[in-house]
């Protein structure tokens, strides 16, 4: 059984986030949504 604590260093975690497509897809959609809102207003 593995330990229940999280030990990933912060730099490694940040790199994991920035190379994760699960991060970039929502970011791209959010930007698109803001542009649409601007257009509609």
């Amino acid at each position: 059984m593995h330990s229940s604590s999280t030990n990933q260093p912060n730099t490694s975690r940040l790199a994991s986030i920035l190379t994760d497509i699960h991060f970039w897809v929502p970011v791209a959609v959010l930007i698109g949504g803001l542009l649409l809102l601007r257009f509609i207003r």
Partner: protein
Amino acid sequence: MPPVSSSQSHPAIPDASRAKKLQLLGIVSGFAAGAWLGAAEAPTKLVSIGVSPMVISLIMVIGVFLARWSLPALILGTSSVRADVRRAPHLVIWALLAGCLWAVANTLTIFAIRDIGLSIAFPLWNSNSLLGILWGFLFFNELRQAGWRRRAGVLGGALVMCVGATLLAIASSSGHGPAAHSLHGVWAALGAGILWGTMYIPYRKAYLTGMNPLSFITFFSFGELGMMTVLSVGSLGLAPLWRELLGARSVIFWLMLGGFVWVIGDIFQQYAAKYVGISRGIPLSNSNQLWGLLWGILVFGELHSRSSSIYVEVIGGSLLMMLGVGAIAFSSASGQEQTRWKDAAIRESDRYGVAADFVEARMDGRQLLGELKPSRSALDWLLVLLATSVFVIFAAMARVPQMSLHWTPAALLTAVLFLLLVICGLALWRTTRFN
């Protein structure tokens, strides 16, 4: 220390009866979510009495913020939120991102309701389920090794929903309000659908990694309130926004109540996404379309004096969408597919160094062996007291909007809401203790 590698030690899946129970729980949560989310949209009808869409959205988000902090504090206590964040701190980023997506989508829905009406806008933004299925398949192994019958159920259901949405879009362009606004309303509703459909990527990621839905929504609220504040101030300016808020004080309570009701629906939706995945959980939650239609027609008198062909298109489109939802609901995940879900969970725990035993326990809707039971502190009760006080203060200022409302159907629909709340809440408590 490198991320924990868990692929060797994960047992396959929880025992069959437990897995079946969790699937059923997810389905019931999805339907309860639909009822509550549908009811929450009703207060946005107040847009017709001249309050700015931005202000309506901001006030609803303030209600949502209060609910998102007070309800988790009441149900489990903030100690459980802190423990979850210590285990998977990276998910705070996704919670904030999801909150921002929600705020923009919600604002778009207000514009959509203003331009094309609740009955029509609702099914259009509910196209988010199609996107949810795609993201679930691409990113989280949903519908992998599901077998042709289940795939056909989910994909066929999605296709039927598409036809229904198209029918409703045609109805929207046939004479409701100015043509230019009608097109804007359709874009706004579809845009909201895309934003909400994508918002489920963070949801699923969080729940595969073991975060409690109640913890996730707590941080989500900062994203949505922050984004909504930026949008409102950027759009109106601080002084005009303040003047509008003062001018709208008699309806603030109703809008905040809408936000509060939305959060209850969203909590059920989160549990649906957790236990049946987003490809099934979102369409189930999207039964809110039917509830929205019921509120719109029975309580607010929508579609009154419109031509019969519009009625046929709107009702026919809605029924088609519901048929699709039904097909998806009856295509629950098989053991093999759940094994693929577990693979996706292992990938997440490996990537971010989250303990595998924690991920496994939470996927099974239970606490980790030896984990402290969540408890409420004075801080939790203070949060509940503060949120309640804010609602009471605005309730004292509230006036019933001067609109033609039908109170008997409103009372009946409210009674059904509470019945679902009790049934689903008890089922979640008995099976998972809200884990």
